[in-house]
């Protein structure tokens, strides 16, 4: 139980670091750590498949992509012109408001059932695979279109057109 709270604390801490650190590269690194804590959460929930995917896709692919772009564009220095403190303050206040209203609307202060792992198998690859390829076959197939779109698009946009139009 306490593990959860500890990891959760870490997650929040590094998430905050991510958004408050000036240097973008540091941000990315903090984000990686945050994602790592998420992986821990998945493991705690016995969602093994997701833990693995999260580890690979997020920490691996996506984060690397971010870093890559940062480096590509040579943005590793903290050159970002900071928003004025007022804007920051407003942003934080707005975020807090959002949190409060979210919490209030979920009635989070009421006592709720504990999370109980009724079926330890659901997070396992075999089980998930079954669901994915039976019930969720169509979305699975369709998401290929999404990825294809993204691929085509990314190439289209990022490519430096040789011909100047």
């Amino acid at each position: 139980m306490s593990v959860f709270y500890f990891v959760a604390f870490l997650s929040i801490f590094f998430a905050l670091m991510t958004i408050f650190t000036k240097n973008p590269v540091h941000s990315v690194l903090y984000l990686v750590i945050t994602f790592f804590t998420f992986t821990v959460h998945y493991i705690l929930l016995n969602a093994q498949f997701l833990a693995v995917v999260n580890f690979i896709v997020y920490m691996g692919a996506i984060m690397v992509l971010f870093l890559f772009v940062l480096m590509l564009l040579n943005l590793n220095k903290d050159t970002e012109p900071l928003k004025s403190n007022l804007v920051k303050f407003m942003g934080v206040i707005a975020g807090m408001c959002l949190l409060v209203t979210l919490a209030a609307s979920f009635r989070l202060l009421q006592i709720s059932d504990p999370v109980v792992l009724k079926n330890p198998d659901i997070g396992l690859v075999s089980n998930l695979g079954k669901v994915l390829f039976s019930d969720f076959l169509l979305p699975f197939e369709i998401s290929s279109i999404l990825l294809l779109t993204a691929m085509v698009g990314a190439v289209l946009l990022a490519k430096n057109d040789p011909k100047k139009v």
Partner: protein
Amino acid sequence: MIDLIWLIPLLPLVGFLLNGLGRNVLSKPLVGLLGSGVVLASFLLSCGVFAEVYTARQAGEPAVFIQSVFEWIAAGSLEVSLSFLVDPLSAIMLLIVTGIGFLIHVYSIGYMKHDAGFAKFFAFLNLFVFFMLVLVLGSNYAVMFIGWEGVGLCSYLLIGFWFKNKEFASAGKKAFVMNRIGDLSFLIAVFLIFNTFGTLEFTGVFPQAAGMAMGDTTLLLVTLLLFVAATGKSAQIPLFTWLPDAMAGPTPVSALIHAATMVTAGIYMIARSNILFTLSPVTLQIVAAIGICTALLAAAIAITQNDIKKVLAYSTVSQLGYMFLGLGVGAFTGAFFHVITHAFFKALLFLGAGSVIHAMGDEQDMRHMGGLKKHLPITYVTMLVATIAIAGIPPLSGFFSKDEILAHAFSANKLLWVLGFVGALFTAFYMFRLLSLTFFGKFRGTTEQADHLHESPASMTVPLIILAVLSAVGGLLNVPSALGGGQALANFLSPVFADSAAVTGPFHLDHSTEYVLMAVSAVGAIVMAVVAYRQYAVKGTVPKADDAPRGVLAKLSYHKFYVDELYDTLVVRPLNALSVFFYRIVDRAGIDGLVNGLGKRVGESAQGIRLLQNGNVGSYIFMMVIAAVLILAFGVFNG
């Protein structure tokens, strides 16, 4: 003959149409012939109708004939048919309108000979006769109103006949508008009558009214409204100022419309509605008061006027005042009698004045006349007759009619008689002043005018002579019993006023008193005539120039008591200012400004909202977060 009533008004209408449409085709003589011919035909028909009425009266019948032409307006319980009513009252009016109308048509052939709008003139004149006949013949208030307004229109057209002169045109407009004020009152009265009696037919209204109580409020209202209408048409205080201005029209017009016929419509209408008035004594008192005031005021103005037609115009107003006085004191027959005699001599006076003006080459200022006696003998003689008649010197017609009114006034209220007598003195004075200044003394015009002086052609003088005869003997129609007369007119008209007479009882005045009154007024008139003659004919006094200094009273009189100016300040200018105020301030700046301002506000608020769209993703997202927070907050309180 009675079946042909509808032809009486129709003929002049036909004349109007023919002359109006063919004005470029028909030759002048033909136009004249046509114009007068149709009126003559109407006159002959009227004579026939009159004869039948007369016969019926002799047989002791009330002699009321109604002829319905077609249903005009019908809506719900309101049914107005275009129908004509002939009774003794309208029969006489028919004769006056067509008879004098015919004479004036004939006169106009000569008078207007050189005018470019000859055919137009005759067309309008015919149209006028048509409307006047409709007024007279109408068997209900609505049809009467047709004529009532129609004559106003013709008056407008004819006053502004020489429209190129702006003032003439304005005079026409003034006449029309002032008449319309009365007309509105007439209309409201009509509505009130309809609401009260459920009909507008005279034969339906009067019997019902006769059954109502004395001093009934509705009747009071109706009669007051009708009286206001009459003040407009018959030029009484406060709506009299148009009549003197109306002299802008050609003189035959002044004679026909503004002396003999149209202006008496008010008296005719009240005489028609006599039972309504008899039953509301308050109105009658007001009528009498207004009548006498008008008579005096106009007479006082007439004394100092120098324009020959203006004098006659004020004289007309004054005489009309007498007629109202007569109505007010219940002398319906007397008032109507005065209508008749006045028609004779006032038409004659105007035509005579026209003859003078004609001879003088359109000069109207008496200060430039004088000594015309020898150049215009017929005109002089006929006008002399008319002057004596209007001055109330026996035995000419005016004496009898005026005397009857004064006798009634005396029995009603001594003060009214005194005032009426004073007015009669004024009348004698200004009429003889006019006569003296015009025909006696030395000629004061230019030599050019002197060379031009000539007696008018026969077409003009013959009507003068006929009218002179009528003016002279018209009084015989209703010689009072005190003088051994048979009161023929009164007897003839008695069914018309029967209801009123039943209410008021028979009029009675000692013969001795009557003799005294007659003597006093006759002597007074003769004295004033002599005074005027001595002053202006013998001494040869010429009225002062316009800008010469005058005494206060003379100045007031000369400037017509500043009534026009008063109206201008009190009504016309404020209205015009109001118009500008309404337009510029209320309409454009106010209401329209409000509308436009609304548009502007919309634009401004749009600019405000536009600021939110500042192109900054951060702020967009910020606002989205705020919105999401609000929505969730709503969920918290509502969920």
